[in-house]
């Protein structure tokens, strides 16, 4: 079948959206951008294709199979994780032949074996039904487990922890750069389905019917009829110029597709903030971006999280507990870090300071929006920061203060807005 793909290469994550000829989203894929946009694009595209096969499988089985599908997805991710883990182990072992590890090779091999066997066992729990994962990226899950287990293993074997880390660091880059071929993915899906059908989740679904339906879905060729790249890394894509679109246009169109009533779009990504005005057809009429300085972008929050030694995803929930929102004057990321330490030293509560910082970035965003032409109902907030509840709360307050009541749209898939617009441009390039 003909498919149309938009790839949004952001500074933090790379997103792909795959649609069919009827503008139906079949699959979404996301990966960390690493420092290699080519790989990130290939991985996210493969992920979108995997998601598309899940969608097609869901369509084939009907609504009654939702439980089975959820379980299949979980089992597939487990299969995928174990496969990547095997690759990681093989790569680590491959590095042991380096002359540098000559003296400790046997000890290292033993330690690596111990670590990987433990992660293999833990994987079942990591992907158990209902288990929460802070990240779905292999690097994050495998990395955090490896760090934990390698410390003990290296101590036991009396080898430096840094050596284990060094081998891991080298190997993870290689493994991350591999994209599983379609055949491997198909086999992972088949294995996943077999696991699911053997478990309680498979009850009520005809085994033969399910396996046959999956076979048919896997046999469908997902033809990449046209691919459009957008985002900061777009120039790095191996695409001709015509297949590259500005992320401003892609975000405008993507927001329109998600919420057709949208007239103003705010996108806060890793390194830029965009205020975009669009017309009733998703066409950009005006835009503004942050200039020269990335204060108030996603990276600002990342920096603050690092300063506080907490996870990025914890910022919002902590800030939501604030009882007052202090005025943070600096929108400069580095100065905000200084202000943060200063206020902590003065005894201010962490949640209050964080709430103030969230307000500071939204103030800057509002300034960019106002320069792009103000806010017109409906308003759509996109980008990774739209997932942060404290940022959203401050945005609501500021919009109300400055522009009155209005509809504020935030899609759970907001991070894919640019890629969605890109996919639509891909379709238009062929169909129109």
């Amino acid at each position: 079948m003909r498919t149309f793909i938009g790839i949004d290469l952001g500074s933090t994550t790379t997103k792909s959206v795959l649609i069919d000829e009827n503008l139906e989203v079949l699959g979404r894929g996301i990966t960390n951008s690493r420092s290699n946009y080519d790989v990130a694009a290939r991985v996210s595209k493969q992920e979108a294709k995997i998601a598309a096969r899940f969608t097609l499988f869901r369509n084939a089985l009907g609504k009654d199979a939702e439980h089975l599908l959820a379980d299949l997805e979980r089992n597939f991710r487990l299969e995928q994780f174990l496969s990547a883990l095997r690759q990681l182990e093989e790569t680590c072992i491959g590095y042991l032949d380096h002359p540098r590890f000559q003296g400790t090779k046997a000890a290292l091999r033993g330690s690596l074996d111990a670590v990987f066997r433990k992660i293999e066992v833990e994987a079942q729990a990591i992907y158990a039904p209902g288990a929460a994962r802070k990240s779905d990226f292999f690097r994050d899950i495998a990395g955090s487990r490896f760090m934990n287990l390698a410390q003990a293993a290296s101590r036991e074997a009396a080898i430096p922890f840094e050596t284990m880390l060094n081998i891991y660091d080298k190997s993870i880059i290689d493994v991350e750069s591999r994209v599983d071929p379609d055949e491997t993915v198909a086999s992972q899906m088949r294995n996943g389905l077999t696991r699911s059908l053997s478990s309680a989740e498979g009850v009520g679904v005809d085994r033969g019917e399910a396996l046959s339906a999956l076979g048919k879905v896997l046999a469908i060729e997902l033809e990449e009829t046209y691919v459009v790249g957008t985002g900061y890394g777009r120039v790095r894509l191996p695409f001709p110029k015509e297949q590259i679109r500005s992320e401003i246009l892609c975000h405008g169109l993507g927001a329109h597709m998600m919420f057709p009533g949208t007239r103003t779009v705010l996108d806060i990504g890793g390194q830029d903030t965009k205020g975009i005005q669009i017309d009733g057809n998703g066409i950009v009429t005006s835009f503004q971006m942050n200039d020269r300085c990335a204060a108030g972008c996603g990276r600002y929050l990342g920096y603050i999280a690092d300063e506080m030694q907490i996870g990025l995803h914890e910022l919002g929930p902590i800030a939501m507990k604030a009882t007052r929102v202090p005025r943070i004057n600096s929108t400069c990321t580095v100065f905000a870090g200084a202000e943060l330490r200063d206020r902590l030293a003065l005894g201010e509560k962490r949640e209050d300071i964080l709430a103030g910082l969230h307000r500071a970035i939204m103030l800057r965003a509002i300034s960019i929006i106002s320069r792009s032409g103000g806010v017109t109902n409906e308003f759509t907030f996109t980008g990774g920061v739209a997932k942060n509840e404290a940022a959203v709360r401050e945005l609501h307050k500021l919009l109300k203060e400055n522009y009155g009541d209005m509809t504020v749209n935030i899609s759970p898939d907001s991070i894919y807005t640019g890629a969605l617009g890109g996919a639509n441009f891909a379709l238009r390039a062929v169909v129109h």
Partner: protein
Amino acid sequence: MSQPEVVKSLSQVKQKEMIGRNYDLITGGTAKVSSTFVPGNLNELLMCFDIANNLPEINAIQNAMRKKSGEMIAEAERSGHSEDVCTYVKADIGMMAKGNIAPNGKPFPDPDVLLLSYTGCFTFMKWFELLREQYRCPTVMLHVPYAADGQPTKNMRDYIVKQLKEDVIPVLETVSGVKFDIDRLREYLRKSAIAENDLVWMLESSKHRPSPVDCYFGGVYYMGPIFTAFRGTDEAIEYYRLLRAEIEERIALGLCAQSPDGDMPEENYRLVVEGPPNWTSFRDFWRMFSEAGAVVVASSYTKVGGVYDYDGFRHDPDHPLETLADYCLGVYTNRNLPTRVDMLARNIVDYDADGLLINSIKSCNSFSAGQLVMMREIEKITGKPGAFIETDLVDPRYFSAANVKNRLESYFQMIDQKRRAGGSAAAAGA
């Protein structure tokens, strides 16, 4: 990476010679030297006293294009000038601190007179205060009233003429030892008007499709002689005659405007631009346009040294002092916001442009103010989309290539999208 060698045209060769000769005159030690600014510069008057014309902004630009302004700005900041000060000023101050070497490699002499023609930029006044402190030479200020109501009045003109008679000319006579001869001024002004006619022809040649010239990146070169030390000279007449002939040939051949890499193969976008170019990354900046097939058909920056195409001004030898007053009153920097809006909106219509691009200058407080409002107004008047980018004049730290390119590409694609949609209806639901 080596860049392809672009063959220089006769007019380019001539201009290079003219500029080189002027620097030799300034640094030669024989002529008296005045420092003065481009907007409202009184070149014809200075020539009446055999005074050479040295323009600090032009020196800053020359240094920026030779990648020297960064270290000069750093030098000025070391001596206490804030990061937010106009970078033309800091490049000039830094150049002085670093030996005051002219582009021809010889040291600039201390000026014999500072002639400040104040035409709307308040920084000029502060700049000249610094220069006066440095050189302690005679300083004369011609106060040109701001055309706040759009139209200069007779009182304003009389006020300037009075200053010319009572302040400027007597100081120049004293400094030079040359008696003012109004007929000599008339003769220079007559020559100015001839060159100005060809200049306006050049500016309007971009109404052709494709435009044979780029009136921003190319335009800053074409404006050189008329805005600097050559207005009123035979050389300027000759330069614009040569330029006109070259453009006529380009029109006959149907050539697109030139780019840093030769003739543009195609013209995809026609823009009107407000604000100066970035000088430290001038060619890279230009390529962001030319590689997309974007040509600038009109720009306000090519009017800062004199507006000739908007209300038909030409220097008038029959009213020599009055015409100098009119010239100063009419330069772009002395125009109010509604007039700037009207000029740019008219340009968009008259030159059949796709829209307005504003390059707002980080360190220019005088002219960056109000630009967003101008853009919105012009969008409303013309129905054409505007876009806003931000760079700086000669401070290399404030040119973020990826950011500027991103915005420009978005703008070009926005124009495409609007064209395809034909008012956007056709794209509905697609």
